[in-house]
Every structure is written in C-alpha cells, then in structure tokens.
C-alpha cells in the first residue's frame, strides 16, 4: 500500500509540478516500441512536433546569446558610464544606477545561469538516479531506508537551509551554488526513478538478465535504464530549468556566488538601489524576461519531447 501512496508515480517537483506530465505515464511508451523502428519514428515525430521545434530553436537562441553575447558586447561588465541611461545605440539596454552597461551584465549573467543550471541538474540527476535505482531495484530494507531519507529531505526547506549555511560561508562560488541546488533537488527524481524501476524490475527481460548471473549494476545500467531513457532525459531537462530558477531566487537574496554577475544578482541590485522608484525598468526587466524565456523554451521543448516519446499524448 505504501508504494502507491508515497512512492507511486510521483507528481510534481520542487521546482515545477509539471513533472506530473511525465511522471504519471511515460511508462507505457518507454517499453512498448521496438528499438529498430524507433529511431526513424523518433526523427519524424521530432521534426513534425511544433512544440519541440519551437522550444529547441528558441532555446538555441539563448544559448547562442550566452556564447556570443559577451563577445559582441561593446562594453565590459566592470566599465563605468553615465548612470541610469535608458537604452540607446551606445548602450543597448541602458546603464544601471552605477553606470554599468546592462547588456554586458545580461550577457555574462546568461552564461552563469546556464552554468549553475547544468551543474545543479547534473548533481541532482546523479544523486536522484543512483538512489532511485538502488531503492527500486533492491527493494527491501535498503528501499525503506532510502525512502525515509528521501522523505526527510523533501521536508527540509532548501532555501532556508542555504540561508543558514550561507550565513557562515563568507565566499561562495558558482560550484557551491550548483552543487547545493543539486543536493537539495534530487528527492523527487529519486522517487520517480524508484517508482519506474519498481515496475520494470519484474519484467521478463530483467528476470532473464538476473538468471544469466549478471551483476545488479550491470542489469540496471544495461537493461533497466535504457528502458526509461526517454524519461530520464525529460527529468534532466526539468531539473535544468528548475535549477536556473532556484539560482535566480538565491542570487536575489544575496546568497549566490560572491563574485560575478548573474541574472539574479542583477534583480537583487535593482531592488536594493530602488530601480522601481527611479523607474530604471531596463535594469530589472531584461534579466527576468530572459530567464523566463530560457526556462519556458525548455519546458515547451520538454512537453514536445514527451509527445514524441509517448504516442498517447500526441495531438489528436
């Protein structure tokens, strides 16, 4: 009973409850299609799925901006100009309260956001999948213990934890922020992966692999994981988006990296130096708008991918 209650297809994630869409039901598709036909089908549906095409191309724009933005920006982040100038030909997004070029800050913030997002997603995926596979495949006592740990982790509010830790760390880097985000967002991944592994564990091909005397890790890596590869991929995309959003919140509170400019610190600075009252909208609107675009493109691509992987979701 407790399986259906606490570990059943887990819905929601700390960042976005959207996970329901994948968590609930990827399963039937994951194991159904024979691999040979799948690749061709995949490309066909991928290229004909408007959501996926739109999301990926939109996201690519931002990635290109992150790569080339700092290179084409005529000014550096540390240079000073006339303070609060509205956007002009010279300063594409104006200058802030101190006279820094907003576009230069935005471009370097984009890079930092992607970096933290990738770090956080990788860490969370690594921890969540390891624990999820272990709990789901082994079952028994290990499962009970791991589930207990997961359930406890869910209930420790990560932002407040970061506040308490951050208060004692005088310097924090990008690495710290990314790893911290990873180490606090894995629980829903572990739950979802565990639930999926649980249903795959009793399939014939897994039994067969077990009979042939292969080791548990090899069975998980070569038989179970490939059968939920599409699902794992979606999970990583969602983690990526939520890690970027979380990082923005942390940076906004002044808990982010102590050096460097991120999208969150731009919003933090604009709040601290009353950009609202001074009507310097070009200081805080771009970073939030860009982040929204980055994450929304990821989410849309994610749903598109879900439809590609999963025939039952396709538009009728």
């Amino acid at each position, binding site marked *: 009973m407790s399986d259906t209650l606490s570990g059943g297809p887990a819905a929601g994630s700390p960042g976005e409850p959207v996970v329901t869409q994948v968590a609930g039901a990827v399963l039937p598709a994951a194991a159904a299609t024979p691999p040979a036909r799948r690749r061709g089908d995949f490309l066909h549906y991928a290229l004909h799925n408007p959501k996926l095409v739109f999301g990926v191309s939109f996201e690519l724009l931002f990635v290109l901006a992150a790569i080339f933005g700092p290179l084409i920006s005529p000014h550096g982040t540390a240079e000073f100009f006339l303070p609060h100038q509205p956007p002009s030909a010279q300063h594409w997004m104006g200058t802030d309260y101190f006279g820094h070029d907003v576009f230069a800050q935005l471009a370097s913030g984009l890079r930092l956001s992607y970096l933290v997002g990738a770090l956080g997603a990788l860490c969370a995926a690594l921890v969540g999948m390891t624990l999820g596979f272990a709990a789901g495949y082994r079952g028994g006592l290990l499962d009970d213990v791991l589930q207990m740990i997961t359930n406890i982790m*869910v209930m420790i509010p990560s932002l407040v934890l970061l506040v308490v830790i951050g208060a004692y760390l005088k310097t924090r880097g990008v690495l710290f922020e990314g790893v911290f985000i990873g180490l606090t967002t894995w629980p829903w991944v572990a739950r979802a992966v565990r639930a999926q592994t649980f249903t795959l564990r009793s399939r014939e091909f897994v039994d067969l692999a077990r009979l042939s005397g292969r080791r548990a890790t090899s069975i998980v890596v070569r038989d179970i994981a490939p059968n939920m590869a599409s699902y794992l991929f979606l999970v990583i995309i969602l983690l990526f988006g939520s890690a970027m959003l979380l990082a923005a919140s942390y940076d906004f509170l002044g808990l982010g990296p102590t050096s460097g400019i991120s999208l969150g610190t731009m919003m933090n600075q604009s709040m601290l130096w009353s950009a609202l009252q001074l009507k310097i909208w070009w200081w805080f609107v771009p970073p939030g708008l860009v982040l929204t675009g980055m994450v929304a493109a990821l989410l849309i691509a994610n749903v598109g991918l879900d439809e590609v992987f999963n025939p039952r979701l396709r538009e009728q």
Partner: protein
Amino acid sequence: MRRYLTRKLITYVLAFFVGATIDWGIPHLMPGNPVQLYLSKFQLQPGGYAALYKTMSEAFGTSLPLWDQYLHFWSGLVRGDLGVSIYEFPSRVTTLVLDAIPYTLALLVPAIVLSYVLGNRLGAAAARRKSLDNTVLPAGYVLQAVPYPWLALALPYLLGEIWHVFPLSGPYDQTLLPALSWTFISSLLYHWFLPFLTVFLVSLGGWAIGMRNLVIYELENDSSRYMRALGARERLVRRYAYRSASLPQLSGLALALGVVIGGNIVTEIAFHYPGLGLLIYNAIEDEDYFLLQGIFIFIVIGVLLANFIIDLVYISVDPRTRLSMQGASS
C-alpha cells in the same frame, strides 16, 4: 493503513530531528564559531578581545563540550526557548517569529490553496479541448518559467509605480496604526493583494499543466474507454478522470511546498512584507544567527504540519487507503 500512518509519523519525527540537528550543527561545524564571528564585527584591542571572547563564550555556552551544547539546544527547543535576537536586541526569537508568522501564512495559505484548486480546474478543462488548450498551455508554461523575484519586481512596477493601482510595498499604510477598524483592515487587504498575486501566479501554471496532462492520460485510459463503451456521458468520464488525476497532483503538492515557501520568502523581501521572509533577510543582514536558527525550526515545523494535513486529505480522497484501514489487503 496503520502501517502507513506509523511510517509517516516516524518520518515526521525523524525529519524534525534531522532538521533540528542540522539547524544546530551548521553553526557548530562551520569554521570559526558564532562568538568569533560576532566579535570580528567590532574593532577591539587584543586584550579586550580575549576578555570579551571569554565572557561571551561563557554567556552563550560555546565553551561547553559539544554534546552538552547539543543537549542544551534540545532542552531549550522543547521549552520553546530559542534565545535572544541580536537584530532586535532584547526581543526573544520566539516572539519575533510569532509576530511574523501571521503575515507569512496570510500570503502562503490562500496562494497555495487557490492556485492548486484553480490550476487543477483550468488544467482539467483544457485537456482535450483544443480551443482552451491553446491558451491555457502557453500561459501555463510562461507562468511556470517566471522567476519569483522578477514577478515580485515587475508586478509592483507596473501596477504600483506606473499605474498607481496598488501600493509598492509594506503590510499596511504607513500612516495607520494597527487597529480593528475598517480602514486598517482594508489597507491590510490592499497591501496584501500584490504579494499574494505573485505567489499565486507562479504556482498556477504548474498545476494547470500537470492536471491537463494527467487528465489526458486518464481519458485515454482503459477505464475511461470502458465507461464510454458502456454509454457513459463524457461529463461523467471526465469527472472520474479528474478524480484519479487528483491523486498524483496531491502528492505533488507536498513536494512543491518547499519551493513555494522559498518563493514566498523572495516575494516578502521584494515587497517588504513583514513575514518570516523579511525576518530572514534582516537576520542575514545583521548576522543574527539565533534568529536564523529559530526561523529555520519554525519553517521545518510548518512544512511538517502541512505535509501531515496533505496526508490526511490524501487518506480521505483515496478510497484505497481507507479500504486497507478496515482490514482489507492492499
């Protein structure tokens, strides 16, 4: 059922224990100790530093062995004594936190409940209805992708600074004194609306999209097909689909709590709304570790309580849990 509840209870107790231990442990395991950190803010002569360090260490008990400090922490916690705040010096941490909690709850509870209920309704309505889906879905993605701090800046800028519809910040009009009068209460509500809207809007999209996808799966389910084959009207099929889809959404609610609470903290800070979030911010600014620890404990308790409530709702919604409570096997 009983097994389920005892398991849950053990998890709660353990989570509280772990939370409290982390809360106590971080300041003690971090390099440097609170007294050193506190004293480093003043420019003291070496002799004065040594004397002050000794007195302060004794006053705060940091010279005791660690296990002794840990026990002291627990006995204080059980008595509800979380120490004295540095940020507002003579006040006790407990009173500061209790003063802030009503504001936080006033934002959080309506935002969570309303976004959950409304989001689910919207999502269910959008599922498999092209015209509605085409508006709900994109709007949902955008809302879900909006960072809390940005909405908490953009909304007051647009509605407060430019259009002057709502106030920019604060819990109530600066010229008013708290009283049980209509003017004060209306001012409270007037100032409450924008921060509430921020927390509400960000959560709304996620629930709508989640519900939409779950209902689509349910509508394609064999049980739904069977019902249609039996000649059930589409409304009835949808109602059943909605019910089954509510279960994963409900367990998703428990998972989303942490993020909503984090978002609430961000929102309070942006709006200068005097809840726990603003208190945290002030505590960080003033390096008030006792206050930080106290708030952490209170938030952990809050999350545990909320999880417990969700568990109870789950039991009342999911008939399978009740069945096994009466002794049927699961």
